[in-house]
């Protein structure tokens, strides 16, 4: 698997484990299930914890865990399965501010959509990475810096820039 952050191929420090336990000191990633509770997470692990969510998950169900985890990984089972984009929006709306990662069947051409929906990182298979090289991800990272929608890019939308320009010219 290959991790991508800010258009670069980087090492993945997170280790996926079956079970979260006391011995964790490294960042560990485990599959979410409903028996995982915040106080249990806080008392069980001394290292950072990440949770893997299916794209059919309900964001509200794990809202109580947001303060106890450092990473949420949303799975993308197929290129055309877009549920993860709306799940990301729901997670961000509920106030989660830490790392949000998309993992699975994702190609570089979708990167700008992911960034705009609030994802920080992407994890892809080596087979996809062979064809979607680091250069492609680098280029894709810069795609459509201006969008019509106000989203999570950190940049003002086209509407905001347009009306700022109009207001400026009116002021002059």
């Amino acid at each position, binding site marked *: 698997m290959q991790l991508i952050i800010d258009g670069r191929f980087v090492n993945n420090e997170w280790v996926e484990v079956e079970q979260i336990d006391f011995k964790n000191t490294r960042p560990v990633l485990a599959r979410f299930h409903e028996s995982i509770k915040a106080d249990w997470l806080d008392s069980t692990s001394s290292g950072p914890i990440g949770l893997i969510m299916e794209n059919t998950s309900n964001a509200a169900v794990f809202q109580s865990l947001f303060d106890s985890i450092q990473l949420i990984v949303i799975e993308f089972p197929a290129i055309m399965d*877009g549920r993860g984009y709306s799940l990301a929006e729901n997670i961000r709306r509920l106030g989660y501010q830490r790392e949000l990662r998309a993992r699975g069947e994702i190609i570089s051409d979708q990167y700008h959509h992911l960034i705009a929906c609030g994802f920080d990182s992407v994890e892809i298979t080596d087979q996809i990475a062979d064809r979607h090289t680091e250069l492609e991800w680098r280029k894709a990272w810069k795609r459509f810096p201006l969008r019509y929608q*106000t989203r999570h890019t950190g940049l003002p939308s086209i509407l905001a820039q347009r009306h700022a320009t109009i207001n400026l010219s009116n002021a002059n």
Partner: protein
Amino acid sequence: MYRYDEFDRNFVEERVSQFREQVARRLNGALTEDEFAPLRLQNGLYSQRHAYMLRVAIPYGTLSSSQLFKLADVADKYDRGYGHLTTRQNIQFNWLSLDRVPDLLAELAQVEMHAIQTSGNCIRNITSDPFAGAAGDELVDPRPVAELLRQWSTLHPEFAHLPRKFKIAITGARADRAAIFFHDIGLRAQKAGNGNLGFEIIVGGGQGRTPIIGQVLNPFVPFDSLLPYLESVMRVYNLHGRRDNKYKARIKILVQSLGVDEFRRQVEADFNHTDHTQFKLATSELRRIEAYFAPPKYAETRESELSSKDEAFLRWVKRNVVAHRQPGYRAVTITVKSPGRPPGDITSREMRTIATLADRYSCGELRVSHEQNLVFAHVRHSDLHDLWQALSAINLGESNSGLISDIIACPGLDYCNLANARSIPLATRLGERFGDPELAEDIGPLSIKISGCVNACGHHHVGHIGILGVSKGDKEFYQLTLGGEAGNAPALGERLGRAITEDQVLDTIDNLIAHYRKIRQPQETFVACVARVGVAEFKESLNAIDH
């Protein structure tokens, strides 16, 4: 009409350059066909039976003469000298090679056109009333809101991978000429008692293999809540629409399975969690866009009686010319349906002539209607005769708007991989059979709509006479429906009987028309007659072809 600013221009140019790289990566193998297919579809490019087909967006059906000149050039340079007007107010080119499509798109960008989201599982081109801004029964001009929706939906990051395609139509008139009950979302703009703009929202309508008349989701959403409300509809659909079966993936199936009340509850729960401040510029943006849709400078307000007594001209005025809100002006439909012509096909030469005529007679602006015709929205009453003569000279002065030979047809088996049967040859033969203008005039308003398969691209469900292509073994057959209607009294056609051959379709329609002319009451249209007596009354028309 709307003009791009530097932001719109840069955005479309960036999409062209992104697509150019995507094509190059497909050709060198970096993109597999499975990966490339959704990317090209979201840029309007289909792989069809013989070649690539590009569907170019004509936003809400509005086109300038300079854009039409460019489409003519594109037809000559990249295609076989013609284009095809679609039922969603777009234009298609059917004979393209993949490697040249980026250059074609770059040329379109020069005249502020693109093919973004004319296909794929995303929000498609917004369609509207072809008489917008001209019709006398209009409460609100829908085009500024349609443009705002075009921008909002363009590369919307959250809704680029929906369960299935998503079509939105908007009208602002009393008469529904945008088929809002047969779209995923239909919007009817209206004014509240205090004069504030708002929208009735219809959801879950559609045709295809499961035709459904849309239901009212909300009778009035104020303008400043429109975008967040639509986002909530899209989000509920994106998360919960079916993805296991493409035939059950449209929003209409979700609305049916949840029930409209539960669907509304989910939408409104989401809406109440939305941060509306992200849409706060919508009102100033609407004001900015509205300035582009100010009425043209009308030249005169008086009108005198038409001086010509030419019967063909008067027939054309009766059928193809409608009232305009501005005294002294009319809106004119140019039916692209002359006998022998595949419905909606238009040559580059015709495009250039029409563009020239639009400059001379219609403020340089024209519309594409969902009936696959063209509309000149602002024609001086005193110019009607000159315009009709100019159109007649290129065989486009037919007086058949809304009549039996004004047929809607999908591309059918001649072009489409999905079709069971050919549509265009049947449409052509029907056009010839009922081409006599006096006969057509006597029959009166009647829409024939032909789809080559259950996907219903030819809208057969809402044809007064609907024709559906079916296959039996390797043979092409057709099934007829009667009584469909897309406007203010939406109805789905009812099946007449068994599937029949192309020859039998012509004979059956002959019989249907003869029977209608026999039993109709004064001023009663075909579809009103069917509604009055029932489809069963017409079954003998089908049975009689065996005798």
